[in-house]
């Protein structure tokens, strides 16, 4: 019925053997979006408390491994909804971790540690150092059936369709159109990601510039730079 919301009972911080959790309460179906954010901000705060004050750990961090674990009874569709919410949190400007730096994320999702009938999830965040060893170990082959290999996730605004080599999509195009950049896909992605990120901040640049500068960041025209670099590549 319109106007009626359903409330569910939910526990936060439960133990896998049924130990009561840190918090318990009712959550309406309208609070769902905030639920994952609350859960993650909790985890991130604890991580920051443990690591954030140790500069040698912060400075050697290169990426994160995030494990979204199915405690037993959650459907795959729902797991993926949670994963998406986790990814959005980590890449949003409000989802900061380790002093506000953002990192590449490898996501792992599966039944890693479970209990019968537990309809819930747990989130674990691992801070990975830049020597690459942990990445190797996490991606190493194993015969353990429950271990599902992780995958890289990109910020939501940077997820693009990867074109299949040799396959050309039919589309109405002018003779000037080229399918793709001709560069290797990784290079193309890098260029797109960086330019998209800058474009998405354009109004912030303008706002700052209005307060601190002459408000145009160079509309006065290109500085004529005498070019001492002459290259012949």
């Amino acid at each position, binding site marked *: 019925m319109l106007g009626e919301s359903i409330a569910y009972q939910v526990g936060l911080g439960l133990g896998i053997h049924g130990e009561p959790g840190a918090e318990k309460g009712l959550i309406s179906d309208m609070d769902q979006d905030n639920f994952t954010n609350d859960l993650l901000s909790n985890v991130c705060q604890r991580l920051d408390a443990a690591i954030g004050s140790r500069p040698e750990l912060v400075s050697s961090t290169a990426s994160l491994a995030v494990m979204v674990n199915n405690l037993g009874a959650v459907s795959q569709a729902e797991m993926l909804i949670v994963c998406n919410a986790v990814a959005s949190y980590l890449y949003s400007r409000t989802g900061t971790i380790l002093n506000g730096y953002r990192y590449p994320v490898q996501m792992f999702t599966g039944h890693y540690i479970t209990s019968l009938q537990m309809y819930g999830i747990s989130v674990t965040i691992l801070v990975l150092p830049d020597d690459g060893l942990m990445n190797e170990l996490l991606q190493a082959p194993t015969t353990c059936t429950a271990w599902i290999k992780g995958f890289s996730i990109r910020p939501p605004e940077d997820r693009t369709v990867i074109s299949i080599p040799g396959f050309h999509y039919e589309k109405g195009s002018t003779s000037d159109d080229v399918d793709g950049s001709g560069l290797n896909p990784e290079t193309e992605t890098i260029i797109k990601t960086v330019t998209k990120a800058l474009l998405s901040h*354009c109004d912030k640049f303008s706002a700052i510039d209005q307060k601190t500068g002459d408000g145009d960041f160079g509309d006065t025209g290109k500085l004529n730079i005498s070019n001492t670099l002459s290259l012949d590549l």
Partner: protein
Amino acid sequence: MNLVVERGCKKIQSDLMSGKYAHTNGNPGSLLKAIAKSTDEMGGTSGGFTETFFKAAAGKFAEIDGQHGDETWKSAFVAGVNAVMKQGGASVGDRTMVDALKPAADALEKEDGSLAQAARAAKDGYEATKSMGPGKFGRSANVRPESLLGQPDPGAYAVSIALEALLMSKQ
């Protein structure tokens, strides 16, 4: 500044997707030079510096014979930063893009320097501009000190965003 950055990024994107970089496949120096060419019409002082950065970085690849690996990319970045600093004359503390660029370059030059460290250094550099007074260079040079405090330099902010995005995209 939004106009300059927007022009530059859109030109790069359109040049990319219309195949103008296709001939550089496998040749990083050539790609960097092509990107420099795309930034040619960006306009603004920062547009000039962006072009300088990419040209100097491209030059490093031309300089070094043989296989190009991570080390070449690091040297190219450092060369780009040095060229910008030389051209504009700004140093760290002047409240410009240099405040993010130079720390990033320094991070890469360290023995175990990584892109993550450079991105962090750039972010720290940009944050530091928030408490800087007007420098000799950059757009803040003619603004009253009181208006500046708490606001970052937009150029430093842009560098920080770009490096962070670069880190994100290399997985």
